[in-house]
């Protein structure tokens, strides 16, 4: 698939770069205002380019709370190379059109003024896909690069590629299937939506996808393979001097008192005659006795980091934990770092009930500060990503690898691509708690297996390395 001119060769090609291309980095929300994955990647890219002495500018959209200057569409509250766009019209989230009549002129003039070699946008929402045409008009020589962060252009369901009613995974868009998910729109609306998006995507010179999986989905959707490159997002900024540092797995921070929430001791049961939701779980030879007592085995701590939403599979995880208790596995603790306060009320109740009923093997810590992520990850033995949707390239995988932790994830999409089963983590069947319980029980009863997976973890590329790969792509796209 990636037969394109954009296949990366892995080797940083030039430590001795004569001059860096000038880059206008765009993101749909200014990183000073929100801290989503795309914003962080954009900001890191901007920062690293400047750290290398290159010319770079940043343009992000304002938040509703941003200070508005009457009549000013573009402001610079954060410095001379840093721009904030204040959208002045209700954005069309169906076909990602920006009806703001000011913006095309503003972006056109800005690009004409800056004359960047590259405009690298980390999103098209809020700016609108028409911006690519305006950028092209403003400075025809510029090359336009767009990072894809999810399946938004393909799927109207928040770009999740999951069915709206059943939440089943969706393999491919079609006008009929999309209209079935959204009865308020007809098939022809989806036809026009796609045509509109693809027409403006024509002006994009290069699409960067952080996973082959996502790239493949976009190729199936109609983007030319020759314009698609797979490249990991810029890794997130770290706190203080430890930024991008590879933390060796052996060094553990001192244990910290954790805020315990849900503890409801339950009588432990033996593993005999266990049927887990109809799925027979077979434990490894000789493990059954050990599991039943739990005495001789070391305690294993698995971590969940992130939003406690249905898509992130929190209920799958809680169910699996219950099944472990039912199996009599007592040397496993699942530590949950995350928050569910922004979830719909109904789902909040589901989570609360699940926590209420959870056994001793679940510890709920609540929300965490991202600056603490490395410290917290050091306390766990492995990461669990039980997402029920495809994911793209979850940043927690990079964070887990940075901390030398293997990852157990659902066997689909971008996450399954990033984790090699049996090397630096394990896959389980998506949305099947029994399958996850089986994998965890296996690790709990075979201590050597986790050690081998931990040894299989390789550090993710550093920001400098990823930047170098970006520069290589920029060079190629400029040369085309």
């Amino acid at each position, binding site marked *: 698939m990636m037969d394109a001119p954009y296949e990366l060769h892995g080797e940083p090609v030039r430590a001795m770069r004569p001059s860096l291309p000038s880059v206008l980095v765009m993101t749909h929300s200014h990183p000073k205002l929100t801290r989503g994955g795309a914003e962080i990647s954009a900001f890191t890219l901007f920062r690293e380019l400047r750290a290398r002495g290159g010319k770079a500018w940043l343009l992000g959209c304002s938040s509703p709370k941003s200070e508005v200057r009457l009549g000013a569409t573009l402001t610079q509250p954060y410095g001379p190379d840093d721009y904030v766009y204040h959208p002045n019209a209700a954005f069309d989230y169906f076909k990602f059109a*920006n009806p703001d*009549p000011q913006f095309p*002129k503003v972006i056109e003039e800005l690009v004409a003024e800056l004359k960047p070699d590259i405009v690298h946008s980390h999103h098209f929402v809020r700016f609108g896909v028409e911006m690519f045409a305006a950028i092209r008009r403003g400075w025809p020589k510029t090359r336009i690069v767009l990072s894809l962060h999810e399946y938004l252009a393909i799927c109207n369901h928040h770009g999740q590629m999951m069915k709206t009613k059943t939440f089943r995974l969706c393999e491919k868009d079609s006008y009929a299937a999309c209209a079935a998910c959204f009865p308020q729109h007809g098939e022809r609306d989806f036809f*026009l939506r796609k045509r509109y998006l693809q027409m403006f995507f024509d002006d994009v010179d290069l699409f960067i996808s952080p996973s082959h999986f996502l790239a493949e989905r976009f190729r199936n959707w109609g983007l030319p393979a020759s314009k698609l490159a797979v490249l990991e997002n810029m890794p997130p900024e770290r706190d203080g001097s430890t930024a991008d540092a590879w933390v060796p797995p052996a060094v553990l921070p001192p244990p910290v008192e954790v805020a315990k929430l849900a503890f409801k001791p339950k009588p432990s049961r033996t593993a005999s005659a266990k049927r887990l939701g109809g799925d027979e779980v077979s434990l490894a030879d000789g493990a059954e006795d050990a599991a039943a007592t739990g005495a001789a085995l070391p305690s294993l701590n698995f971590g969940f980091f992130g939003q406690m939403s249905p898509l992130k599979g929190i209920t799958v995880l809680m169910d699996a934990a219950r099944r472990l208790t039912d199996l009599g596995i007592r040397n496993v603790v699942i530590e949950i770092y995350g928050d569910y306060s922004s979830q719909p009320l109904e789902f909040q109740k589901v989570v609360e009930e699940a926590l209420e009923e959870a056994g001793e093997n679940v510890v709920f810590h609540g929300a965490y500060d991202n600056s603490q992520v490395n410290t917290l990850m050091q306390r766990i033995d492995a990461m669990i990503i039980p997402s029920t949707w495809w994911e793209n390239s979850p940043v927690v995988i990079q964070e887990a690898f940075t901390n030398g932790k293997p990852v157990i994830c659902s066997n689909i999409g971008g996450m399954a691509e990033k984790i090699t089963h049996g090397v630096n983590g394990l896959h389980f069947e998506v949305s099947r708690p029994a399958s996850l319980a089986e994998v965890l029980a296996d690790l709990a009863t075979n201590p050597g297996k986790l050690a081998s997976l931990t040894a299989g973890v390789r550090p993710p590329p550093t920001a400098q390395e990823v930047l170098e790969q970006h520069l290589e792509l920029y060079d190629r796209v400029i040369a085309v």
Partner: protein
Amino acid sequence: MSMMPPATQSTHGCIDFLSYSASLDGWLAGGWIDLSWDDRDEPPAYILEFGETKVEGEAVVCVFPRPDVRKIGVGVLLFMPGVSQRADAFQDAILIRDGRRFRLTASEPLDRPTEFEAIARTKSLISSAMRSSRRAHLLRLLNRPTFAGHDTLDTLQPPVFLELDAACLCPPAGLLLRGWFIDPFRSVASIRIRCGAESRLLDTDHWIRIPRADVRQGFSKQFGGLIDECGFLAFVGDVYSPGETVYFEVQGRLGDVAFKRVAQVRSAGVDTIKETLSNLELRYDELARGYDHVLGPAVAAMNDFRLMEAVDYKEMTFGDSPAHPRCSIIVPLYGRIDFMELQLAFFSRTLGRHHEIIYVLDDPTILRATEALATSCIARFRLPFRLVTLASNVGYAPANNVGLKLARGDYVCFLNSDVFPKTPGWLDSMVAVADARPEVGVVGAMLVFEDETVQHEGVAFEVLPEFAGWNFSLHPRKGRYPSEDESVQEVEAVTGACLMMPMALAREVGGFDEGYVIGDFEDVDLCLKARERGRICVVDRSARLYHLERQSQGGQQSSWRLNLTLYNAWRFQKRWPPAALEQLAQGESEGRAKKAELAGAAE
């Protein structure tokens, strides 16, 4: 009493009073007549002269003794059934018997009593007339009950039920009546509709039966043998005059008469057209009768009235459209303005700047939103266009015609808002086809659905037996995969969804016929007008566009919309009967043969 007639004129009597009786549908007059008049039962012919206008028929004549004229004549009373005229223009009444003309001239001054005074006076005078069957007949007429402003229908025995749901004016003076009628004992001889001096018989020709199960069920316990179709839709022309009461006059077989007042007459508009065409399902032969006598004239009158006043519009320009465009694209907008946004986006990649685009907003309710979107579109897509906004919703043909009036191109391309270009240069290709062949009057495009199957590759006419054997315009191969063929092909007609023609020709034929309501058949009508002038219609199969058909008019076809299509079909048959279509086709093939012959001779 009466003045002698002027001596210069040869007269045989005099008319002293004259009055039109609407309830009797004729003229009542009294005066005297020459002694030579042969008074017998056989009715004489009469002519009433009102200046240039004459009313003729057979008169009922009764003579009576009149001492004041006893040496030269006798008193005479006349009833002359016929239509109303202005009584002040009356000059002479002429009776013709055995080939002899008796001229009775108007006395000066002529007495013109009211209808009721005339009836009373005639009754009083006739009492002294000799007994005859004529006298008896006239007395019967004079004693008929008259409408006194209130309903008397419930006095009829056996009972008759007549209710009106709506009466709509079909300007200038027609009425469309919707209601239900039950005559369980078949005792009704006739129903007339009356207004002022006018009256019209409601005959079955001007009456469509409509199922009203609710009414039948309501009466089925009382009466047996009722049918579902007791509802009616009736049209009467030339009866209404403003300010006069409209009422039904129901006459029984025994001569008894009762009245029913029409409480309210509604004015004509799109709503009344919709209402008229709702809840009807006419098929086969009832279709032709229903549209010929009831729906056709009624809807035509309402639509003419609706379009009587020139539509008010204003124009805004976005960007600089060319002063002398090659082609003017005209797109009427209704409801979904996001189609304008999408079209302009797609046009920005498929259209040269030497064409102009004119949007005609035929939906004043979304004026502000359209203006805002237009401002945004020019900023985003940089493609100049003109936006014409109409002050009222007038429909497809009139909206396009406003655009046509303002267009500046050498050609005009009528385009639907749900048509989106597929190939670049589509319009240049169509213009080139017309440029190359002067005989081409209309160029259509190859239109496909979003799944790439055929929506339109030319129109063919086909007779549909279910629909009165009328000709309908069909799209052959619709829904099938198109062939790769990119040639130019001659067709019977093309769809108005994308129809290009020379501007001069479009103006010469007067654009679209606005008599078609809302949007059907006016496109093929336009094509036939071009063919009538010796031009041909072609489809340029290399010009490809998507047509997301009927998106702009909502989904499921409602009954009124289907019936409106049938109205337009009816209008089309009247304008282009099958014989006219055949003649066109024959003329064209003869023309082709002749051309080929000439070409052969030239070689």
